[in-house]
């Protein structure tokens, strides 16, 4: 039996077709339909509305210019978030060059086994089950990611959130495989520490 596509998927198929036909109003519709998630991704990279807007603008230009390369092998939403994440990464690089005051090694080298500083979350109050039910876990996860130092945040966003292949993350970040693994591992340990009250096995010994 043929399964019908969900409405959102049909809308995306139409949106892609219109974008490929160079229908500019489809780009505005994309902002209305997918803008909130694009904005969320942009904010996670840039942490302020003004920079996030620039990232969204860059992402919109990329979507417009690259839409012909989208072949529908992945979901359209995944593709636009990936484009937005890439725009975020490029913006961070530009910002770093401009400011020239943030070193990728500012928080320690990747060979350093010491944990990252403890992340301070706003509230660890609710019980885990309740947290999951109310969706508050998501807020805590995002707050924890947001507090990671930038190089670690970028690694986690690209690899664990966006689930890009290691090779692609290495290419995007310019890191060697050992350096990326080390950075990811340290970021995960810091997140684990921050989220411990909400995790399975949370009653275990501290690392």
């Amino acid at each position: 039996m043929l399964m019908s596509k969900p409405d959102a998927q049909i809308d995306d198929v139409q949106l892609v077709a219109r974008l490929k036909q160079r229908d500019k109003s489809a780009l505005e519709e994309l902002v209305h339909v997918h803008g909130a998630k694009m904005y969320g991704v942009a904010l996670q990279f840039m942490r302020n509305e003004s920079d996030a807007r620039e990232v969204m603008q860059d992402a919109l230009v990329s979507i417009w210019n690259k839409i012909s390369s989208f072949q529908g092998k992945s979901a359209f939403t995944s593709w636009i978030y990936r484009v937005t994440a890439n725009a975020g990464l490029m913006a961070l690089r530009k910002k770093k060059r401009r400011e020239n005051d943030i070193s990728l090694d500012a928080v320690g080298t990747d060979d350093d086994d010491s944990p990252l500083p403890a992340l301070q979350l706003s509230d660890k109050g609710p019980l885990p089950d309740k947290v999951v039910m109310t969706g508050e876990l998501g807020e805590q996860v995002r707050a924890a990611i947001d507090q990671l130092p930038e190089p670690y945040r970028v690694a986690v966003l690209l690899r664990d959130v966006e689930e890009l292949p290691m090779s692609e993350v290495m290419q995007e970040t310019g890191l060697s495989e050992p350096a990326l693994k080390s950075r990811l591992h340290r970021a995960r340990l810091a997140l684990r520490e921050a989220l411990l009250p909400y995790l399975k096995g949370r009653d275990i010994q501290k690392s």
Partner: protein
Amino acid sequence: MSMNLIKGLWKRLLRPDACSHTKKLLYEYVEGDLTSETSHKLEKHLGNCPPCLKYVESYRHTIEVTHHHGLPEEPMPPALKQKLCEFIKQHPDLK
């Protein structure tokens, strides 16, 4: 991590400080980068060491919740939406 280093770490797993070396193999184990032999030995240790097992579980769970909850959806301020629509109409690269 080189294979020699992993082998060395595994030899030390047989000693009383096995738990601290479990942590050192954690990333490779979770990513499936260990040989099946090392993985099997590690799992044998996990079967006998509840704290290490819980440590590994919490590490895995961290990755899961990061993936499931890390992608945020932020309501866009109306003014931002308007600015983006103006950008789309006016930007020379969007023709």
